[in-house]
């Protein structure tokens, strides 16, 4: 096969003419040749060399990263030991890379054990039963119990992917408080179960019972006071009127006596100012003499010098006043710290109070104390006094976990019925 090239045509984009057949017919066998296989093989060879070799010839360790229980933080020691054994200096970067790669690979691979939530998978679910649900969440699908807060990876054989328990590799906990701050919500600072008043004991002492009765009585009295309109509250109204009278008398006193004196003062001041203005105008007319001017300048200079001297003397003596200043600063800092603490406590106290999330306010309840006749003294004779469920519900409202709301009553919507009167009908027929 001879290949002739038209050199003139090179670069013009024309196709090279190839003579397929030889004249001597000696090498006709070439026409039956095809180099496609060879070319393909060559390409393959090139690719393999570029990509690093054929996959079948490679060891498992080169292709896959085998998880031998390395976890950041916990198994760093084992990693270091392993690195020492390998006698290769593996840096922290390498460690992190391994951990990260493992984690990513884990999350990316399809997990046959995890249920897809969004998909419309129709599984053959059993009859809905809380017991079985409880069993299911406590025991995993594989039948082994589940520890939600486990930090260690199960020491299972991890030679194959099938044995890897994906359920143990829980996602890192998201921020429980979405506002971005690490502090827990203030609802958690209040105790959920507050120890009750000692007067609520099944067999209380006289003092405790008396104290409980007093507190409830005062609470009820306070509630009743608030419910009574102001005009009818005898002591308060008196006090208010007293206050207003006093303030009124003060105002009148101020008006009558102080203002008059002030007015007199004002008069005198006005007079002074008038004369001053008059004098000033007279001064402006006179011109100063040079001697007088120089004298004034000298006086001013002396005053300046005296002031400067005083200032420097005071400054030099500041060193001896340092202790006094330090004491003053310490006192002030104590007071400011106290004030800051007081503000913080006040703020915390106000934030822990039951808040208003809706139209209704939380109404605190008074203690449920038994009267002396109801006191049993023994467990056998105890009578149920307080409503436990209601208390728990109310405590949720008090701790600002749920808002206080009134259940919407179902109002009946009456349908408008239309009918014709008989008399109207009769008239229409006529």
């Amino acid at each position, binding site marked *: 096969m001879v290949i002739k090239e038209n050199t003139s045509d090179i670069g013009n984009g024309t196709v090279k003419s190839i003579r397929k057949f030889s004249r001597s017919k000696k090498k006709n066998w070439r026409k039956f040749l095809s180099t496609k296989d060879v070319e393909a093989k060559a390409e393959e060879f090139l690719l393999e060399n570029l990509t690093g070799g054929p996959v079948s010839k490679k060891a498992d360790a080169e292709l896959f990263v085998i998880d031998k229980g390395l976890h950041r933080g916990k198994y760093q020691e084992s990693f270091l030991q392993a690195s020492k054994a390998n006698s290769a200096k593996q840096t922290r970067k390498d460690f992190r890379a391994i951990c990260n790669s493992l984690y990513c690979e884990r999350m990316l691979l399809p997990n046959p054990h995890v*249920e897809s*939530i*969004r998909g419309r998978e129709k*599984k053959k*679910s059993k009859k809905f039963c*809380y*017991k079985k649900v*409880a069993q299911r*969440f*406590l025991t995993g699908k594989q039948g082994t*119990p589940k*520890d*939600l*807060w486990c930090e260690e990876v199960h020491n299972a054989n991890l030679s194959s992917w099938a044995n890897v328990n994906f359920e143990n590799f*829980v996602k890192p*906990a*998201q921020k*429980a408080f*979405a*506002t971005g701050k690490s502090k827990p*919500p203030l*609802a958690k600072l209040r105790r*959920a*179960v507050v*120890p*009750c008043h000692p007067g*609520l004991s*099944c*067999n*209380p*002492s*006289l*003092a*405790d019972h*008396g*104290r409980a009765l*007093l507190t409830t009585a005062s609470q009820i009295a306070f509630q009743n006071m608030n419910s009574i309109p102001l005009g009818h509250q005898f002591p308060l109204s008196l006090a208010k009127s007293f206050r207003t009278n006093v303030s009124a008398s003060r105002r009148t006193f101020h008006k009558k006596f102080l203002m008059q004196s002030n007015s007199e003062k004002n008069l005198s001041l006005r007079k002074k100012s008038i004369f001053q203005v008059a004098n000033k105008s007279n001064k402006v007319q006179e011109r100063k003499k040079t001697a007088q001017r120089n004298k004034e300048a000298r006086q001013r200079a002396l005053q300046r010098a005296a002031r400067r001297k005083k200032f420097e003397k005071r400054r030099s003596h500041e060193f001896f006043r340092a202790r006094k200043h330090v004491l003053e600063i310490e006192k002030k800092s104590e007071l400011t710290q106290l004030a800051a603490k007081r503000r913080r406590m006040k703020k915390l106290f106000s934030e822990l109070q039951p808040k*208003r*999330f809706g*139209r209704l306010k939380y109404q605190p309840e008074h203690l449920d104390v*038994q009267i002396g006749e109801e006191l049993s*003294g*023994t*467990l*056998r004779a*105890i009578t*149920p*006094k*307080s*409503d*436990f*469920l*209601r208390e*728990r*519900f109310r405590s*949720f409202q008090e701790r*600002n976990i*749920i*808002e206080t709301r009134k*259940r919407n009553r179902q109002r009946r919507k009456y349908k408008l019925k239309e009918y014709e009167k008989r008399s109207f009908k009769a008239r229409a027929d006529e």
Partner: protein
Amino acid sequence: MVAKRKKKYASGEGAHFMTRKAALKKLQLSLNDFRRLCILKGIYPREPRNRKRAQKGQAGIKTLYHVKDIQFLMHEPIIWRLRDYKIFNKKVGRARAVKDFESLKKYLNNHPTLKLDHIVKERYPTFLDALRDLDDCLTLCFLFSTFPSIAHVPRDQSALCRRLTIEFLHAVIEAKALRKVFVSIKGYYYQAEIKGETITWIVPHHFSFEPQSRAEVDFKLMSTFVEFYTVMLGFINFRLYHSLNLFYPPKFSVVSQNDDEKSIVDEEVFVSERVAALNFPVSKTSSGEEEEEVEIDTFSTEDTPEKIEEAKIEAEKIKNLKGLFKGLKFFINREVPREPLVFIIRCFGGEVSWDKLLFVGASFDENDESVTHQIADRPSMDKQFISRYYIQPQWVFDSVNARQLLPVNKYFMGEVLPPHLSPFIDKSRDQQYIPPEEKALYDPEALEELHKKQETDDESEEEEQEDEKLEAEDSEKVDEDEEDTEDEEEEEEGESTKKKKLKVTPGEVYKEVPWEKSKQERQEYKLREKLVKNKHRKLYKSMMAGRQQRAKEIWLLRKKRRLHEEKQKEERKKKKKVEKQTT
């Protein structure tokens, strides 16, 4: 070019808060679903500083949520489940209306279920966080375990609550974590210490269920809380059991000899009943390992040697408390509430049993001679054994709170019991009225004084009568003695004057007039009061007013106590007189 005008409420509080209606619109959920989601995720409504800005100028008071909280909710996979529920309900309703029972059955069999594990992990990243929130969880679970089947509370939920709470009690028994007990009219208050966290919960008394009006309590809301708490408690139980090397779910290997059941109907029921009895020790995974005694570390710090000593004393007390009822055997009568007493006695190392007809799990009989204490709440019993004490149940609770075995004489059957005092009082407060019985609990000397006082009150009446007789005789002798003493004093004075002249005598003792001293102190105090600045005067006044009020309360209580004791004295006198007259 006109500058862009800044929109109102686009920044600041207006941008940080969102009304509930807006949140519902954003999440595309109904109000009930939204409420349920918020409860499960732990999202609470917030009160802004400036309501007008937060509500974007709208009038009224609206429920507001943080925008970030709602955005956090948007990525919750449970929302899809809730939507699936909605679709499921629609399908079921339609099938029912159309009377397509086959498809209805299919739908009911393939209903969507909620999984809350990831929420528990999200809300409580560590085990300690979950323990801190265990108070509410336990209280609600104990409450719901007593409920019958109601509209929003299915029977299985209450059964699950019951199972989980009993498992938790077993864990507390094995860990010996119980510290305080208080019996109130509401129920039993327990306080335990687990992993350094104090957990307080209430178990209501076993009374019949009282139906609630819808206006007072939202049952659906509470059942949502319980739904979450059951999941949480399950995980906590699992972790606790594993930390204590116990099998979970609990297993027991010891079967009592009194179980004469010929045929066991259901193994699960058998096991669950015996677990509920709280009388059988749960089997452990690792055998033969006892608790290692943890020694308190002593660091060489000169500043806090007292605190270290206090901590050591406290640790010793707790160590003694854990074995408070060790070696004692209790038998509980029928009329006494079984469960709380069994729990408490077993927590502190005691053995307990009851009448086998009452409940499953009785380990020994009433006739067992090794029984040391029998707990009875009756005025009297016909048949009594000499080898045991018959006491009222309050003895157990009071002994636990006092951290020692109290004398049994005051708790016998028919006796008027001493008051059951609360162990939750804050001792750090100075101004607090402490009844003498409580003082006696903490100071053994005060106890002796109390006893002595009671004895002397009885004896004083008899002595008064005798004294009257003796006074008449003594008055004659006294006159004679007075004359002798006067002569002796005169002689001594003469000698002392001579001595004074010759020798250097020590300084004379200045007799302080107490009223003058107090007067001066009062004046100084008033001066100091006047030095208080105007800024702090109000605070100072309120502090002093509070102190005076508390002091007044204490004085009132003391007065009441004094009057009460005097009354009792008079009554006793009258009784004795009547008895004397009759004899």
